[in-house]
């Protein structure tokens, strides 16, 4: 019965907004399902299973032999998604075969082994055995369109909570064991030793930094620390050797497929830690450019040319199989520089160390750094080993002071989960000339954090009392309330009506005292833009 159980898990994950609830659903699934099915499910959730066994057109053809084409077309129009339409519309067989629905592992194995010509027959036999939820999961699986409402990282967190093993150890092991991960589950259930990943390109949980707040600064002994720029890209780990090559996000998602040019450059035997950036002629492009490259399955030649990716390295974890993580940072830095000079990997450079002689000097450097691609500074203790997780006091991130504007609240939307009865998402705007001699508000961003619990209660009541119209979960409000919004950067954007996008906007203060007419103008925000063409 495990394909239906997997389908039910997917169904609930799709609709469940809360992290803890997702964890509870997955923990129970791993605890109650058998091998090898739960391992196949883990692979599916982590995006490790990919089939191209059936194209969506094959599924469409199958159902077209059984359903009136007019009704099929109307149904597809109504439902929107083809796989879901087919799953719902598939006629229940008049004589239900006297067999249980297929196991997930059975389906996956059959798909891997079957000649292409057999696939339509197999598929329709399975569809006859399943209920609508099971049919949807099956179709999404075989057409490669499976979207899971949980990340692989969260699934491994669920494994950790279920088994009591630390998640960092699970991260290291699971990439080195192929699906359906039988040795992994045997270890987690205490039936076997921990599997040894050896040379496989596994993910090592990265060392993370704590935010440096003003009170911490004074207590810091600056001589013990080294400084680097904090780059506004994506933290990655590149792992390469005889066992293969991989590019991981800092949460252990495999992003190798999206960056083929980086993968090609990994012609060495080492594990490096660094920042993924779009770099043109040595200049770091704004984050918006990198965003063009993220979350893509296939990358065309134009993408590769217009948004060239590079890696800015700041740490060396393994060199030719030797684990350097116990060495102090200074020693690892020396090894990194020597290794880099010798190997000269393509598409990579070293993140330079920033010289300083006092915290005051460092603060001035931080505040002066307004170049695109720099978010602030990183401070790393010279004598600290590389420790997975977020150890206290060893690495600090010191973001530059945020930018701020006073904006006017325009729309509010109810949140999800615990916030589903509270207007907690706010769209705000700035003034500009409306071209007819007057002024108009143009929306510039959306924020759903930064406020205190009391401010949220106040905002919710204000919104309910000042609503001018409602569209589903959204309310338009009287344009009267000024919010101070802080954000990390402003960048030009053709996707926004205002022409500008904010990085990580959040509400820093409510300004009911300030008349809306005195809120900032769009020009003020435009002046803060970094990627302005010269």
């Amino acid at each position: 019965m495990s394909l239906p159980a997997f389908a039910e898990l997917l169904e609930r994950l799709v609709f469940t907004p809360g992290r803890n609830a997702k964890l509870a659903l997955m923990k129970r699934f791993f605890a109650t399902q058998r091998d090898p099915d739960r391992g196949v499910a883990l692979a599916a959730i982590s995006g490790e299973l990919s089939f191209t066994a059936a194209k969506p057109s094959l599924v469409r053809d199958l159902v077209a032999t059984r359903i009136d084409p007019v009704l099929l077309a109307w149904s597809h129009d109504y439902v929107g998604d083809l796989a879901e339409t087919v799953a719902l519309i598939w006629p229940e067989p008049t004589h239900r075969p006297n067999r249980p629905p297929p196991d997930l592992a059975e389906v996956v194995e059959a798909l891997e082994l079957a000649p292409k010509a057999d696939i339509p027959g197999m598929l329709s036999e399975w569809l006859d055995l399943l209920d609508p939820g099971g049919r949807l999961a099956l179709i999404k699986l075989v057409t490669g369109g499976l979207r899971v409402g949980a990340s692989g990282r969260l699934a491994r967190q669920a494994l950790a909570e279920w088994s009591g093993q630390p998640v960092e150890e699970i991260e290291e092991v699971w990439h080195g064991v192929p699906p359906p991960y039988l040795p992994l589950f045997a270890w987690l259930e205490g039936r076997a030793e921990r599997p040894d990943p050896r040379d496989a390109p596994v993910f090592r949980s990265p060392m993370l930094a704590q935010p440096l707040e003003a009170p911490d600064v004074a207590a810091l002994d600056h001589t013990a620390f080294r400084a680097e720029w904090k780059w506004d890209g994506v933290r990655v780990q590149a792992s390469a050797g005889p066992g293969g090559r991989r590019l991981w996000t800092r949460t252990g998602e495999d992003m190798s497929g999206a960056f083929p040019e980086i993968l090609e450059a990994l012609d060495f035997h080492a594990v490096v830690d660094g920042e993924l950036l779009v770099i043109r002629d040595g200049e770091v492009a704004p984050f918006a450019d990198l965003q063009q490259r993220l979350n893509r399955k296939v990358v065309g030649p134009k993408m590769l040319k217009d948004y060239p990716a590079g890696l800015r390295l700041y740490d060396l974890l393994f060199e030719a199989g030797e684990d350097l993580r116990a060495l102090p940072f200074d020693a690892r830095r020396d090894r990194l520089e020597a290794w880099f000079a010798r190997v000269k990997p393509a598409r990579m450079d070293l993140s330079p160390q920033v010289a300083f002689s006092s915290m005051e000097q460092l603060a001035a450097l931080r505040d002066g750094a307004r170049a695109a691609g720099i978010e602030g500074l990183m401070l790393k203790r010279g004598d600290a080993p590389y420790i997975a997780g977020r150890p206290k006091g060893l690495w600090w991130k010191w973001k530059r002071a945020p930018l701020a504007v006073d904006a006017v609240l325009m729309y509010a939307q109810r949140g999800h989960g615990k916030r589903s009865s509270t207007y907690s998402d706010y769209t705000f705007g700035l003034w500009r000339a409306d071209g007819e001699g007057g002024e108009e508000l143009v929306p510039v961003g959306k924020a759903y954090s930064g406020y205190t619990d009391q401010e949220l209660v106040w905002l919710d009541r204000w919104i309910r009392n000042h609503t001018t119209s409602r569209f589903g979960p959204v309310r338009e409000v009287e344009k009267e309330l000024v919010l101070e919004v802080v954000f990390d950067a402003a960048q030009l954007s053709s996707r926004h009506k205002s022409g500008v996008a904010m990085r990580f906007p959040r509400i820093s203060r409510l300004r009911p005292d300030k008349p809306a007419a005195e809120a900032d103008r769009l020009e003020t925000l435009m002046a803060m833009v970094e990627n302005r063409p010269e």
Partner: protein
Amino acid sequence: MPAPHPDSWTRITPEGLYCEPGGFHIDPARAVERAVISHGHSDHARPDHGAVLATPETLAIMTARLGEGRAGREQQALPYHQTLVQNGVRVTLVPAGHVLGSAQVVLEWRGSRLVVSGDYKRQPDPTCLPFEAVPCDVFVTEATFALPVFRHPPMRHEVQRLLDSVRLFPQRAHLVGCYALGKCQRLIAGLREAGYDRPLFLHGAQASMCRLYERRGIALGELLPVPRPEKRGATVLPGEIVLAPPSAEANPWARRLADPVTALASGWMRVRQRAKARGVELPLVISDHADWDDLLATCAEVEAPEVWVTHGREEALIHALAARGVRGRALHLIGREEDEGADPVPAEEEAAG
């Protein structure tokens, strides 16, 4: 002499379907002189008609919902299967299986028979009598779920999903949105059939209709109001099931519940986009309307050569009937809700804070 075709003795007026020789409307969209009412949902049972004919249960429901004096100046109760003759038109009410008291209106005139089914379902429902197929010359049907993607699973399957979720999340309340008339009581009965004997907690809007069902002999087990938290900011009812009108989770009233799992019992929950758009965490496919298979099976059972479709997805049903040699006609009645028995969410909870 051949029997007259029903379209010669009925017509569509702005108020809805009208029986000429009988001089009455069936489920009119606004106040009329004489109305026959199929069941108590507000899009069928409007206020302030002159004379109302309906089952005793429907009359009781209308009076409870519309208020004394607004459910027809003159009420006439017609129990199921009894026949009343009005100006030569024989009127009989036959169970429709939709909600308590719901009836198909069977009209016979000079040997010609028209069945106006109102809203109906074919799935079992412990809270009302099952639908009975009456052979006829013209069958008037709804088409709320008239697309082949709509197939409602057995209710016990959905009840098990709810109970399973309650077991998995003992720290959270389960807030189940369901219409106050019919769906709510059917769901309660389904939970009781599944052996769930804990108290169920009701939003104020659900409670009065449940009491009416219980007075009519339908046992629903222990039902309690949702308590207020003892101190400000605290929450209540972890691990319990709360039944409330759809969308109640959007009201501040819901904040008193312990981290609620929001569920919604509706046939529309079959389609992911609909469930997503409502922000439902646990969609339950439970409907009081006939699904696609049951619409077609019912049209076949009544053996009518012609079917009139009142509201919903008329074109799909008419297309499918044509393929089966049955003539279909869309009546384009106005004033029917797409939502199942939609009633406005009562004002109680906004005021309650």
